[in-house]
């Protein structure tokens, strides 16, 4: 590989640019390798979409920075450098293999045209040329007309999409504003009712008035109401039993 000598400054610049490029590409490669490894090695159920998409986002942003770096004015214009293969060798080149992590074994006649290509293949290039030639021969008026009608069509589609978007957004707004499907207040009320009897243990008071304390009446629930005089007695007994608080059965575990 050869680089024209353009004085020390430019050479250093080229060197740093290439260093940075190599480093960036290595980072990118690591990321991609990591992702492939995960896909192959980890059980499918442990992979989830969000983290997968995150990985993609990182890779694409790295590609972006790489492209931006190449296009940057301060970066040396690689376009203006030539790369000239000086010798081709059909034998396996250990050094090259190491450099490319085992992907390229030899630097031979078969590989070089693919790796160092800067132009499309001759057939492709030929087809391109015919197309360009054809384009030149077309009448300018016809071209303008066609362009106008294409622009027109694109415009209409863009308008349609814009319109749909407005409608869609309005719809979302409307839904969030008016159609509330639940009330937090109701939730709290219901939970308080089933867990603590809020608002429903009122009928307890009612039945206490209407039902006289009963001795026993199997199969009905009325005798579950605490008898007020009984409750009083319960309280008095409490004083007595508190003294027994030290008995072993009373100890909290």
């Amino acid at each position, binding site marked *: 590989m050869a680089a024209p000598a353009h004085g020390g400054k430019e050479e250093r610049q080229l060197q740093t640019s290439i260093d940075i490029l190599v480093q960036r590409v290595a980072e990118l490669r690591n990321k991609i390798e990591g992702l492939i490894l995960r896909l192959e090695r980890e059980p499918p159920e442990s992979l989830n979409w969000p983290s997968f998409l995150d990985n993609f986002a990182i890779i694409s942003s790295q590609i972006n920075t790489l492209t931006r770096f190449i296009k940057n004015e301060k970066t040396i214009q690689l376009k203006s450098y030539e790369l000239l293969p000086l010798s081709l060798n059909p034998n396996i080149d250990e050094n090259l293999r190491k450099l490319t992590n085992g992907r390229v074994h030899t630097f031979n006649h078969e590989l070089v045209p693919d790796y160092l290509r800067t132009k499309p293949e001759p057939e492709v290039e030929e087809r391109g040329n015919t197309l360009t030639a054809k384009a030149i021969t077309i009448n300018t008026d016809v071209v303008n007309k066609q362009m106008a009608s294409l622009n027109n069509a694109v415009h209409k589609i863009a308008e349609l999409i814009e319109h749909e978007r407005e409608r869609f957004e309005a719809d979302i707004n409307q839904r969030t504003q008016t159609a*509330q499907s*639940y009330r937090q207040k*109701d*939730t709290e009320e219901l939970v308080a009712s089933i867990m*603590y*009897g809020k608002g*429903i243990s009122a009928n*307890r008071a009612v*039945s206490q008035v209407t039902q006289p304390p009963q001795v026993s009446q199997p199969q009905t629930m009325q005798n579950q109401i605490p008898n007020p005089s009984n409750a009083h007695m*319960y309280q008095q007994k409490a004083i007595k039993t508190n003294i027994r608080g030290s008995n072993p059965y009373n100890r909290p575990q």
Partner: protein
Amino acid sequence: MEQFISHKSNAEAMVKGVVPTQEYYLHGSILDSNRETLLYRLQGSCDGDQSKFLDHEQVFVLKGQALNAPDVNVSIRKSLLPVPSGAVRNPCQMRYTNDPDSDRSKPTMVRTCLDIAVNEDQILQYLKSLGFSFEYEFVSKGYVFRRGRTKISVSKIHRVLVKGQTEKIEPLTESNLIEFSCTAPAGTEHLQDEIKAYADQLKPHVNIDKQDVKRLVSTPGFQNNPNA
């Protein structure tokens, strides 16, 4: 004393075994007008079919004031649905629950619970003779779904107008109560995340979350606080 210890360790062994004693749960509600949509969504994402239920629940408490001990709450829940001919009615369920754990860092509410199937004919007299007193009752009517280990119920809570008469009822609110609940043996805290993740999937249609309602019932008489 030995007897007492052996009794204790017995109970502990049961706790350590397969008896589910922890309940993880979340609550939410849905307005009547939007209930169908939610039911469709649940049916699509839950295992198997929904089933209808109509339950009568009565709550009893054993007041611990006199002994300076915390109250013991149990509820008796039985189905009011007619039993298909030839089938035997399932026993009614007695359930003990303690006050929920108010740890804010946990994804769901947690409380200790015990589910005990009991025969129906004498349970009320039995509780009464043990010193339990009736607190309140309600009728819940709705649908129950199952998703993995989680039980999801969407039900309308009704007030019972005349005590013990379950045919005279009126709805409490215009909303239906949604309950996500999972009972499991102790040491299964990871299940909480599972429940929470599914509950979050139903947002923003409904908000199923931890509901700390204790502040709503601070009125004396509803809940007595043993300051032991």
